[in-house]
Protein backbone atom coordinates (compact mmCIF):
# COMPACT_ATOMS: atom_id res chain seq x y z
CA UNK A 1 0.00 0.00 0.00
CA UNK A 2 1.48 3.29 -1.06
CA UNK A 3 1.54 6.14 1.40
CA UNK A 4 3.00 9.60 1.48
CA UNK A 5 6.19 10.10 3.38
CA UNK A 6 4.76 13.45 4.42
CA UNK A 7 6.61 15.62 1.95
CA UNK A 8 5.44 14.92 -1.50
CA UNK A 9 7.23 11.80 -2.65
CA UNK A 10 5.32 8.59 -2.54
CA UNK A 11 7.04 6.01 -0.45
CA UNK A 12 5.97 2.63 -1.66
CA UNK A 13 6.86 1.12 1.68
CA UNK A 14 8.63 -1.66 -0.16
CA UNK A 15 11.98 -0.18 -0.77
CA UNK A 16 14.08 2.45 0.94
CA UNK A 17 16.26 4.93 -0.96
CA UNK A 18 19.36 3.01 0.11
CA UNK A 19 18.09 -0.29 -1.24
CA UNK A 20 16.84 1.37 -4.41
CA UNK A 21 20.27 2.95 -4.87
CA UNK A 22 21.89 -0.44 -4.33
CA UNK A 23 19.49 -1.98 -6.85
CA UNK A 24 20.47 0.70 -9.40
CA UNK A 25 24.12 -0.21 -8.96
CA UNK A 26 23.28 -3.82 -9.76
CA UNK A 27 20.89 -3.01 -12.56
CA UNK A 28 21.07 0.51 -14.04
CA UNK A 29 17.66 -0.05 -15.65
CA UNK A 30 16.19 0.41 -12.21
CA UNK A 31 17.06 4.09 -12.45
CA UNK A 32 13.64 4.68 -14.01
CA UNK A 33 12.24 3.79 -10.57
CA UNK A 34 14.26 6.66 -9.12
CA UNK A 35 12.72 8.84 -11.80
CA UNK A 36 9.20 7.72 -11.03
CA UNK A 37 9.69 8.20 -7.31
CA UNK A 38 11.20 11.68 -7.43
CA UNK A 39 10.07 13.35 -10.64
CA UNK A 40 7.31 15.38 -8.98
CA UNK A 41 9.64 16.55 -6.23
CA UNK A 42 12.32 17.72 -8.64
CA UNK A 43 9.82 19.24 -11.08
CA UNK A 44 8.06 21.15 -8.30
CA UNK A 45 11.33 22.52 -7.01
CA UNK A 46 12.48 23.77 -10.42
CA UNK A 47 9.02 25.04 -11.42
CA UNK A 48 8.95 27.06 -8.19
CA UNK A 49 12.29 28.70 -8.90
CA UNK A 50 12.07 29.12 -12.70
CA UNK A 51 8.73 28.25 -14.23
CA UNK A 52 6.75 25.25 -15.34
CA UNK A 53 7.97 25.39 -18.90
CA UNK A 54 11.61 25.35 -17.83
CA UNK A 55 10.88 22.65 -15.27
CA UNK A 56 9.34 20.39 -17.92
CA UNK A 57 12.73 20.31 -19.59
CA UNK A 58 15.16 20.72 -16.69
CA UNK A 59 13.58 18.13 -14.42
CA UNK A 60 14.25 15.53 -17.12
CA UNK A 61 17.80 16.88 -17.46
CA UNK A 62 18.31 16.50 -13.71
CA UNK A 63 17.59 12.78 -13.93
CA UNK A 64 19.67 12.34 -17.05
CA UNK A 65 22.65 13.96 -15.32
CA UNK A 66 21.97 11.99 -12.16
CA UNK A 67 22.02 8.78 -14.18
CA UNK A 68 25.27 9.66 -15.91
CA UNK A 69 26.84 10.49 -12.55
CA UNK A 70 25.17 7.73 -10.57
CA UNK A 71 28.54 6.42 -9.43
CA UNK A 72 28.97 9.58 -7.41
CA UNK A 73 25.91 8.83 -5.32
CA UNK A 74 27.03 7.53 -1.95
CA UNK A 75 24.18 6.27 0.25
CA UNK A 76 26.43 6.82 3.25
CA UNK A 77 26.35 10.55 2.53
CA UNK A 78 22.59 10.88 2.35
CA UNK A 79 19.42 9.93 0.55
CA UNK A 80 18.38 10.26 -3.07
CA UNK A 81 16.12 13.24 -2.49
CA UNK A 82 18.85 15.70 -1.37
CA UNK A 83 21.23 14.32 -3.99
CA UNK A 84 18.74 14.95 -6.81
CA UNK A 85 17.74 18.37 -5.48
CA UNK A 86 21.42 19.26 -5.25
CA UNK A 87 21.83 18.45 -8.95
CA UNK A 88 18.69 20.46 -9.74
CA UNK A 89 20.14 23.39 -7.74
CA UNK A 90 23.30 23.29 -9.87
CA UNK A 91 21.20 23.34 -13.03
CA UNK A 92 19.11 26.25 -11.71
CA UNK A 93 22.37 28.12 -11.06
CA UNK A 94 22.82 28.31 -14.84
CA UNK A 95 19.56 30.24 -15.00
CA UNK A 96 20.11 32.83 -12.29
CA UNK A 97 19.00 35.69 -14.45
CA UNK A 98 15.75 33.98 -15.41
CA UNK A 99 15.16 33.20 -11.75
CA UNK A 100 15.75 36.81 -10.70
CA UNK A 101 13.44 38.03 -13.46
CA UNK A 102 10.74 35.74 -12.18
CA UNK A 103 10.93 37.07 -8.63
CA UNK A 104 11.01 40.65 -9.85
CA UNK A 105 7.91 39.98 -11.96
CA UNK A 106 6.15 38.43 -8.97
CA UNK A 107 7.18 41.42 -6.87
CA UNK A 108 5.63 43.85 -9.31
CA UNK A 109 2.30 42.15 -9.36
CA UNK A 110 0.36 39.20 -8.09
CA UNK A 111 -1.40 39.16 -11.45
CA UNK A 112 -0.98 36.88 -14.42
CA UNK A 113 2.48 35.47 -14.62
CA UNK A 114 3.12 35.59 -18.33
CA UNK A 115 6.53 34.03 -17.87
CA UNK A 116 4.83 30.78 -17.24
CA UNK A 117 3.75 30.04 -20.78
CA UNK A 118 1.07 27.45 -21.07
CA UNK A 119 0.75 27.10 -17.36
CA UNK A 120 -1.16 30.41 -17.17
CA UNK A 121 -0.86 31.46 -13.59
CA UNK A 122 -1.18 30.22 -10.10
CA UNK A 123 -2.45 32.37 -7.29
CA UNK A 124 -2.68 31.63 -3.61
CA UNK A 125 -5.25 32.44 -0.96
CA UNK A 126 -6.38 36.04 -0.73
CA UNK A 127 -4.60 36.65 2.57
CA UNK A 128 -1.35 35.35 1.20
CA UNK A 129 -1.77 37.20 -2.08
CA UNK A 130 -1.51 40.64 -0.48
CA UNK A 131 1.88 39.79 0.92
CA UNK A 132 3.23 38.08 -2.15
CA UNK A 133 4.79 41.05 -3.92
CA UNK A 134 6.74 41.88 -0.76
CA UNK A 135 7.85 38.33 -0.27
CA UNK A 136 8.93 38.04 -3.90
CA UNK A 137 10.87 41.28 -3.56
CA UNK A 138 12.63 39.97 -0.48
CA UNK A 139 13.41 36.73 -2.27
CA UNK A 140 14.94 38.64 -5.17
CA UNK A 141 17.10 40.52 -2.67
CA UNK A 142 18.57 37.37 -1.05
CA UNK A 143 22.00 36.18 -2.10
CA UNK A 144 22.07 33.11 -4.32
CA UNK A 145 23.42 31.03 -1.44
CA UNK A 146 20.68 32.17 0.90
CA UNK A 147 18.05 31.42 -1.73
CA UNK A 148 19.41 27.92 -2.29
CA UNK A 149 19.08 26.94 1.38
CA UNK A 150 15.72 28.53 2.04
CA UNK A 151 14.14 27.18 -1.15
CA UNK A 152 15.56 23.69 -0.63
CA UNK A 153 13.73 23.84 2.67
CA UNK A 154 10.48 25.51 1.50
CA UNK A 155 10.06 23.83 -1.89
CA UNK A 156 12.29 20.78 -1.56
CA UNK A 157 11.23 20.09 2.02
CA UNK A 158 14.73 19.11 3.05
CA UNK A 159 15.98 19.13 6.63
CA UNK A 160 19.06 21.11 7.72
CA UNK A 161 21.16 18.01 7.39
CA UNK A 162 19.82 17.14 3.94
CA UNK A 163 20.41 20.69 2.70
CA UNK A 164 24.02 20.26 3.79
CA UNK A 165 24.19 17.02 1.76
CA UNK A 166 22.52 18.59 -1.27
CA UNK A 167 24.89 21.54 -1.40
CA UNK A 168 27.96 19.88 0.06
CA UNK A 169 28.24 22.44 2.87
CA UNK A 170 28.58 21.94 6.64
CA UNK A 171 25.56 21.75 8.93
CA UNK A 172 26.53 24.94 10.73
CA UNK A 173 26.73 26.89 7.49
CA UNK A 174 23.25 25.70 6.54
CA UNK A 175 21.94 27.00 9.86
CA UNK A 176 23.48 30.42 9.58
CA UNK A 177 22.44 30.94 5.95
CA UNK A 178 18.96 29.75 6.74
CA UNK A 179 18.66 32.11 9.70
CA UNK A 180 19.74 35.07 7.64
CA UNK A 181 17.40 34.18 4.78
CA UNK A 182 14.38 33.48 6.96
CA UNK A 183 15.02 36.64 8.97
CA UNK A 184 14.97 38.78 5.85
CA UNK A 185 11.82 37.14 4.53
CA UNK A 186 10.07 37.46 7.89
CA UNK A 187 10.98 41.11 8.05
CA UNK A 188 9.44 41.66 4.63
CA UNK A 189 6.20 39.95 5.66
CA UNK A 190 5.94 41.82 8.95
CA UNK A 191 6.74 45.23 7.51
CA UNK A 192 3.99 47.76 8.26
CA UNK A 193 2.10 49.15 5.29
Amino acid sequence: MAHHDGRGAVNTGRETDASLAAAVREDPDRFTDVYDRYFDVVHGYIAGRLDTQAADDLAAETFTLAFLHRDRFDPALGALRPWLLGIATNIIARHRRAEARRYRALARSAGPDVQDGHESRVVASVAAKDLQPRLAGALAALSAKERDVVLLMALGELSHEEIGQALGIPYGTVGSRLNRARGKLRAALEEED
Partner: protein
Amino acid sequence: MDELHALKDLLARPAAAQAVKDEGRHRLRNTMLRGPAPKRRRTRLFAGGLTVTAAGLATVVALVGGGSPAEREAAPNGPPLPAPVLMSGSEVLTNAATAVGRQPSEGAYWRISSTGVVARSATGRGYDVVQKMKQTFWLSTSPGGKSWTVSQYLGFVPATEADAAKWRADGSPESWRLEHKDPRCPKGRCAVQILSTKPQPVVTRAFGGKGVVGELAGLPITIAQVRALPTDPAKLKAAIARRLPGAKGRFLDMLAFENGMQLIMNLPVSSGVRAATYRMMAALPGVRSLGEATDQLGRKGHAVTMGADGSKKVLHRVIIDPSTGLPLATEMFTPADGTVLNDTTVTAAGWTDDRPDLSRP
Protein backbone atom coordinates in the same frame (compact mmCIF):
# COMPACT_ATOMS: atom_id res chain seq x y z
CA MET B 1 2.23 33.83 8.51
CA ASP B 2 5.18 31.47 8.56
CA GLU B 3 7.62 32.57 5.87
CA LEU B 4 8.27 29.05 4.61
CA HIS B 5 4.59 28.43 3.98
CA ALA B 6 4.32 31.85 2.39
CA LEU B 7 7.17 30.96 0.04
CA LYS B 8 5.45 27.78 -0.90
CA ASP B 9 2.22 29.66 -1.60
CA LEU B 10 4.11 32.12 -3.73
CA LEU B 11 6.05 29.60 -5.75
CA ALA B 12 4.09 26.33 -5.77
CA ARG B 13 3.12 25.23 -9.25
CA PRO B 14 0.79 22.47 -10.33
CA ALA B 15 2.37 19.07 -10.76
CA ALA B 16 3.58 18.19 -14.25
CA ALA B 17 1.19 16.55 -16.67
CA GLN B 18 1.56 12.80 -17.08
CA ALA B 19 2.73 13.35 -20.66
CA VAL B 20 5.61 15.54 -19.42
CA LYS B 21 6.70 12.75 -17.11
CA ASP B 22 6.42 10.19 -19.89
CA GLU B 23 8.48 12.34 -22.24
CA GLY B 24 11.16 12.84 -19.59
CA ARG B 25 11.29 9.13 -18.89
CA HIS B 26 11.67 8.49 -22.60
CA ARG B 27 14.58 10.91 -22.69
CA LEU B 28 16.17 9.28 -19.66
CA ARG B 29 15.76 5.85 -21.24
CA ASN B 30 17.45 7.06 -24.40
CA THR B 31 20.39 8.23 -22.31
CA MET B 32 20.43 4.93 -20.44
CA LEU B 33 20.44 3.02 -23.71
CA ARG B 34 23.16 4.91 -25.46
CA GLY B 35 25.45 5.45 -22.50
CA PRO B 36 27.31 8.64 -21.74
CA ALA B 37 26.58 10.68 -24.82
CA PRO B 38 28.05 14.07 -25.58
CA LYS B 39 26.57 16.60 -23.23
CA ARG B 40 23.15 17.57 -24.36
CA ARG B 41 22.16 21.16 -24.66
CA ARG B 42 19.32 22.22 -22.50
CA THR B 43 16.84 23.54 -24.96
CA ARG B 44 14.55 21.42 -27.02
CA LEU B 45 13.25 22.81 -30.21
CA PHE B 46 10.70 20.50 -31.54
CA ALA B 47 8.06 18.16 -30.43
CA GLY B 48 7.61 14.78 -31.94
CA GLY B 49 10.28 13.10 -29.91
CA LEU B 50 12.75 14.43 -32.37
CA THR B 51 14.91 15.49 -29.47
CA VAL B 52 16.06 18.53 -31.30
CA THR B 53 18.09 20.88 -29.27
CA ALA B 54 20.41 23.72 -30.05
CA ALA B 55 22.63 26.14 -28.31
CA GLY B 56 21.07 29.50 -27.82
CA LEU B 57 17.56 28.50 -28.77
CA ALA B 58 15.82 29.10 -25.54
CA THR B 59 12.48 27.88 -24.32
CA VAL B 60 10.67 26.95 -27.46
CA VAL B 61 9.40 23.95 -25.66
CA ALA B 62 6.83 21.74 -27.23
CA LEU B 63 7.36 18.67 -25.25
CA VAL B 64 3.98 17.20 -24.77
CA GLY B 65 0.30 17.06 -25.04
CA GLY B 66 -1.59 16.08 -21.97
CA GLY B 67 -3.11 13.05 -23.56
CA SER B 68 -4.49 12.14 -26.88
CA PRO B 69 -5.59 15.10 -28.95
CA ALA B 70 -9.16 15.53 -29.76
CA GLU B 71 -8.97 14.25 -33.24
CA ARG B 72 -7.76 10.90 -32.13
CA GLU B 73 -10.37 10.23 -29.49
CA ALA B 74 -12.43 8.37 -32.01
CA ALA B 75 -9.76 5.69 -31.99
CA PRO B 76 -9.00 5.17 -28.32
CA ASN B 77 -7.03 2.05 -29.03
CA GLY B 78 -4.38 3.69 -31.13
CA PRO B 79 -3.96 5.12 -34.53
CA PRO B 80 -6.42 3.99 -37.14
CA LEU B 81 -6.07 0.36 -38.01
CA PRO B 82 -3.89 -0.14 -41.02
CA ALA B 83 -5.76 0.04 -44.26
CA PRO B 84 -4.85 -2.79 -46.59
CA VAL B 85 -1.11 -2.25 -46.77
CA LEU B 86 -0.02 -1.68 -50.30
CA MET B 87 3.54 -0.61 -49.58
CA SER B 88 6.00 -1.54 -46.92
CA GLY B 89 7.42 1.12 -44.63
CA SER B 90 10.61 0.97 -46.56
CA GLU B 91 8.78 1.54 -49.87
CA VAL B 92 6.93 4.54 -48.43
CA LEU B 93 10.25 6.08 -47.43
CA THR B 94 11.93 5.27 -50.74
CA ASN B 95 9.06 6.93 -52.62
CA ALA B 96 9.37 9.92 -50.30
CA ALA B 97 13.07 10.08 -51.18
CA THR B 98 12.24 10.27 -54.87
CA ALA B 99 9.58 12.94 -54.35
CA VAL B 100 11.67 15.07 -52.02
CA GLY B 101 14.65 14.82 -54.35
CA ARG B 102 12.62 16.70 -56.97
CA GLN B 103 12.00 19.65 -54.62
CA PRO B 104 13.99 22.88 -55.03
CA SER B 105 17.26 22.64 -53.23
CA GLU B 106 18.20 26.03 -51.89
CA GLY B 107 16.98 29.39 -50.69
CA ALA B 108 17.93 32.01 -48.14
CA TYR B 109 16.01 30.19 -45.42
CA TRP B 110 14.56 26.79 -44.74
CA ARG B 111 11.21 27.66 -43.20
CA ILE B 112 9.00 25.23 -41.32
CA SER B 113 5.82 26.05 -39.44
CA SER B 114 4.03 23.67 -37.14
CA THR B 115 1.33 23.36 -34.52
CA GLY B 116 1.19 20.95 -31.64
CA VAL B 117 -0.79 20.35 -28.47
CA VAL B 118 1.31 21.33 -25.47
CA ALA B 119 -1.18 21.00 -22.63
CA ARG B 120 -4.44 19.30 -21.88
CA SER B 121 -6.45 19.81 -18.74
CA ALA B 122 -9.75 18.75 -17.22
CA THR B 123 -11.76 21.83 -16.25
CA GLY B 124 -13.74 20.22 -13.45
CA ARG B 125 -16.89 21.22 -15.35
CA GLY B 126 -17.36 18.03 -17.31
CA TYR B 127 -15.13 18.82 -20.27
CA ASP B 128 -11.44 19.03 -21.15
CA VAL B 129 -9.52 21.89 -22.73
CA VAL B 130 -6.29 21.83 -24.73
CA GLN B 131 -3.65 24.39 -25.57
CA LYS B 132 -1.61 24.41 -28.74
CA MET B 133 1.62 26.10 -29.63
CA LYS B 134 2.41 27.44 -33.10
CA GLN B 135 5.96 27.96 -34.17
CA THR B 136 7.98 28.80 -37.23
CA PHE B 137 11.68 28.26 -37.76
CA TRP B 138 13.64 30.40 -40.21
CA LEU B 139 16.97 28.63 -40.67
CA SER B 140 19.52 30.71 -42.51
CA THR B 141 21.80 29.14 -45.11
CA SER B 142 24.24 32.03 -45.24
CA PRO B 143 27.41 31.66 -43.17
CA GLY B 144 27.08 34.00 -40.21
CA GLY B 145 23.39 34.55 -41.00
CA LYS B 146 20.83 34.83 -38.26
CA SER B 147 18.21 32.14 -37.80
CA TRP B 148 14.96 32.69 -35.96
CA THR B 149 12.27 30.92 -34.03
CA VAL B 150 8.88 32.58 -33.74
CA SER B 151 6.47 30.89 -31.38
CA GLN B 152 3.19 31.47 -29.66
CA TYR B 153 1.15 29.61 -27.10
CA LEU B 154 -2.51 29.82 -28.15
CA GLY B 155 -5.43 30.05 -25.77
CA PHE B 156 -7.10 27.00 -24.26
CA VAL B 157 -10.02 25.62 -26.27
CA PRO B 158 -12.38 22.67 -25.74
CA ALA B 159 -10.56 19.44 -26.55
CA THR B 160 -13.17 17.75 -28.72
CA GLU B 161 -16.46 18.52 -30.44
CA ALA B 162 -18.22 16.88 -27.51
CA ASP B 163 -16.22 19.05 -25.11
CA ALA B 164 -17.13 22.13 -27.17
CA ALA B 165 -20.84 21.32 -26.85
CA LYS B 166 -20.50 21.03 -23.07
CA TRP B 167 -18.49 24.26 -23.00
CA ARG B 168 -21.30 26.10 -24.79
CA ALA B 169 -23.82 24.59 -22.39
CA ASP B 170 -21.58 25.92 -19.61
CA GLY B 171 -22.05 29.47 -20.96
CA SER B 172 -18.89 29.54 -23.09
CA PRO B 173 -16.58 30.76 -20.31
CA GLU B 174 -13.30 32.40 -21.36
CA SER B 175 -11.30 31.14 -18.43
CA TRP B 176 -11.31 28.26 -15.99
CA ARG B 177 -10.16 28.20 -12.40
CA LEU B 178 -8.58 24.94 -11.30
CA GLU B 179 -7.85 24.05 -7.71
CA HIS B 180 -5.05 21.58 -7.44
CA LYS B 181 -4.90 18.93 -4.82
CA ASP B 182 -1.18 18.88 -4.71
CA PRO B 183 0.83 17.25 -1.95
CA ARG B 184 3.00 20.36 -1.93
CA CYS B 185 0.07 22.56 -0.99
CA PRO B 186 -0.18 23.34 2.69
CA LYS B 187 -3.57 22.58 4.17
CA GLY B 188 -6.29 25.01 3.16
CA ARG B 189 -4.07 27.06 0.89
CA CYS B 190 -3.99 25.18 -2.28
CA ALA B 191 -2.62 26.32 -5.61
CA VAL B 192 -5.16 27.69 -8.06
CA GLN B 193 -4.51 27.71 -11.78
CA ILE B 194 -6.28 29.96 -14.25
CA LEU B 195 -6.56 28.70 -17.84
CA SER B 196 -7.56 31.31 -20.38
CA THR B 197 -8.84 31.29 -23.95
CA LYS B 198 -6.53 34.25 -24.64
CA PRO B 199 -3.38 33.54 -26.62
CA GLN B 200 0.00 34.40 -25.13
CA PRO B 201 2.21 36.97 -26.83
CA VAL B 202 4.38 35.95 -29.80
CA VAL B 203 7.93 35.17 -28.69
CA THR B 204 10.84 35.66 -31.09
CA ARG B 205 14.38 34.41 -30.66
CA ALA B 206 17.42 34.76 -32.84
CA PHE B 207 20.30 32.34 -32.99
CA GLY B 208 23.16 31.57 -35.30
CA GLY B 209 26.25 32.39 -33.28
CA LYS B 210 29.31 30.58 -34.66
CA GLY B 211 27.27 29.43 -37.63
CA VAL B 212 25.09 27.06 -35.59
CA VAL B 213 21.80 26.36 -37.39
CA GLY B 214 20.39 23.67 -35.16
CA GLU B 215 21.30 20.38 -33.69
CA LEU B 216 21.94 16.88 -34.92
CA ALA B 217 22.21 13.88 -32.60
CA GLY B 218 22.50 16.01 -29.51
CA LEU B 219 25.26 18.28 -30.79
CA PRO B 220 25.09 21.71 -32.36
CA ILE B 221 25.60 21.68 -36.11
CA THR B 222 26.90 24.60 -38.20
CA ILE B 223 25.84 25.56 -41.69
CA ALA B 224 29.27 24.47 -42.95
CA GLN B 225 28.76 21.03 -41.39
CA VAL B 226 25.24 20.86 -42.84
CA ARG B 227 26.65 21.54 -46.30
CA ALA B 228 29.27 18.84 -45.88
CA LEU B 229 26.70 16.12 -45.12
CA PRO B 230 26.97 13.21 -47.56
CA THR B 231 24.26 12.30 -50.07
CA ASP B 232 25.07 8.61 -49.73
CA PRO B 233 22.61 6.90 -47.33
CA ALA B 234 25.22 4.66 -45.65
CA LYS B 235 27.67 7.54 -45.19
CA LEU B 236 24.90 9.67 -43.78
CA LYS B 237 24.10 7.03 -41.19
CA ALA B 238 27.78 6.87 -40.32
CA ALA B 239 27.85 10.66 -39.92
CA ILE B 240 24.97 10.44 -37.46
CA ALA B 241 26.58 7.50 -35.66
CA ARG B 242 29.83 9.44 -35.18
CA ARG B 243 27.82 11.93 -33.14
CA LEU B 244 26.41 9.13 -30.97
CA PRO B 245 29.33 7.29 -29.40
CA GLY B 246 28.22 4.05 -27.82
CA ALA B 247 25.06 3.69 -29.90
CA LYS B 248 24.91 0.38 -31.74
CA GLY B 249 22.48 -2.04 -33.33
CA ARG B 250 18.79 -1.35 -32.94
CA PHE B 251 19.42 1.58 -30.62
CA LEU B 252 21.48 3.25 -33.28
CA ASP B 253 18.70 2.47 -35.76
CA MET B 254 16.16 4.10 -33.50
CA LEU B 255 18.33 7.19 -33.12
CA ALA B 256 19.08 7.22 -36.85
CA PHE B 257 15.33 7.40 -37.48
CA GLU B 258 14.82 10.24 -35.01
CA ASN B 259 17.77 12.18 -36.33
CA GLY B 260 16.72 11.44 -39.89
CA MET B 261 13.44 13.21 -39.18
CA GLN B 262 15.45 15.99 -37.64
CA LEU B 263 17.51 16.37 -40.82
CA ILE B 264 14.44 16.32 -43.03
CA MET B 265 12.37 18.77 -41.01
CA ASN B 266 14.56 20.99 -38.95
CA LEU B 267 17.85 21.55 -40.72
CA PRO B 268 18.55 23.49 -43.91
CA VAL B 269 19.89 20.51 -45.89
CA SER B 270 19.78 20.18 -49.67
CA SER B 271 17.09 18.10 -51.36
CA GLY B 272 19.81 15.54 -52.15
CA VAL B 273 20.61 15.09 -48.45
CA ARG B 274 16.91 14.96 -47.63
CA ALA B 275 16.44 12.18 -50.21
CA ALA B 276 19.49 10.32 -48.89
CA THR B 277 18.08 10.61 -45.38
CA TYR B 278 14.83 8.93 -46.40
CA ARG B 279 16.83 6.16 -48.13
CA MET B 280 18.91 5.72 -44.98
CA MET B 281 15.69 5.44 -42.95
CA ALA B 282 14.15 3.03 -45.50
CA ALA B 283 17.01 0.62 -44.81
CA LEU B 284 16.37 0.54 -41.05
CA PRO B 285 14.86 -2.67 -39.75
CA GLY B 286 11.85 -1.85 -37.62
CA VAL B 287 10.27 0.67 -39.97
CA ARG B 288 6.65 -0.32 -40.55
CA SER B 289 3.90 1.03 -42.76
CA LEU B 290 0.45 1.89 -41.43
CA GLY B 291 -0.88 2.53 -44.91
CA GLU B 292 -2.81 5.66 -45.72
CA ALA B 293 -3.49 8.04 -42.86
CA THR B 294 -5.15 11.42 -42.39
CA ASP B 295 -3.56 14.13 -40.30
CA GLN B 296 -5.34 16.54 -37.98
CA LEU B 297 -5.92 18.98 -40.83
CA GLY B 298 -7.58 16.26 -42.90
CA ARG B 299 -4.64 15.87 -45.29
CA LYS B 300 -3.97 12.38 -46.56
CA GLY B 301 -0.55 10.78 -46.57
CA HIS B 302 1.33 7.57 -45.95
CA ALA B 303 2.13 6.69 -42.36
CA VAL B 304 5.20 4.84 -41.11
CA THR B 305 6.16 3.89 -37.55
CA MET B 306 9.40 3.14 -35.82
CA GLY B 307 10.18 2.16 -32.22
CA ALA B 308 10.98 5.18 -30.10
CA ASP B 309 12.46 3.84 -26.90
CA GLY B 310 14.14 0.55 -27.57
CA SER B 311 10.97 -1.35 -26.76
CA LYS B 312 7.73 -1.50 -28.68
CA LYS B 313 6.00 0.51 -25.97
CA VAL B 314 6.46 3.91 -27.57
CA LEU B 315 6.43 4.47 -31.33
CA HIS B 316 7.14 7.35 -33.65
CA ARG B 317 4.57 7.86 -36.34
CA VAL B 318 5.25 10.05 -39.34
CA ILE B 319 2.69 10.88 -42.03
CA ILE B 320 4.37 11.75 -45.32
CA ASP B 321 2.84 13.65 -48.21
CA PRO B 322 3.61 11.37 -51.19
CA SER B 323 3.55 14.27 -53.67
CA THR B 324 6.23 16.40 -51.97
CA GLY B 325 7.91 13.75 -49.84
CA LEU B 326 7.72 16.12 -46.86
CA PRO B 327 6.21 15.16 -43.51
CA LEU B 328 2.67 16.34 -42.77
CA ALA B 329 2.70 15.30 -39.13
CA THR B 330 4.77 13.49 -36.55
CA GLU B 331 3.81 12.09 -33.20
CA MET B 332 4.93 9.73 -30.48
CA PHE B 333 2.33 7.38 -29.08
CA THR B 334 1.96 4.32 -26.91
CA PRO B 335 0.27 1.65 -29.02
CA ALA B 336 -0.99 -0.22 -25.96
CA ASP B 337 -3.58 2.42 -25.11
CA GLY B 338 -3.28 4.91 -27.96
CA THR B 339 -2.02 7.72 -25.73
CA VAL B 340 -0.32 10.40 -27.83
CA LEU B 341 2.68 11.73 -25.95
CA ASN B 342 3.24 14.62 -28.30
CA ASP B 343 2.31 15.64 -31.77
CA THR B 344 3.42 18.11 -34.39
CA THR B 345 1.41 19.06 -37.44
CA VAL B 346 3.50 20.72 -40.13
CA THR B 347 1.51 23.58 -41.64
CA ALA B 348 4.19 24.76 -44.10
CA ALA B 349 7.72 23.70 -44.99
CA GLY B 350 10.08 24.73 -47.76
CA TRP B 351 12.77 27.08 -49.02
CA THR B 352 12.16 30.79 -49.18
CA ASP B 353 14.01 33.97 -50.06
CA ASP B 354 11.54 36.03 -48.00
CA ARG B 355 12.80 38.02 -45.08
CA PRO B 356 11.78 36.41 -41.79
CA ASP B 357 8.34 37.55 -40.66
CA LEU B 358 8.77 37.90 -36.92
CA SER B 359 5.25 39.14 -36.27
CA ARG B 360 3.61 35.76 -36.27
CA PRO B 361 4.55 32.09 -36.04
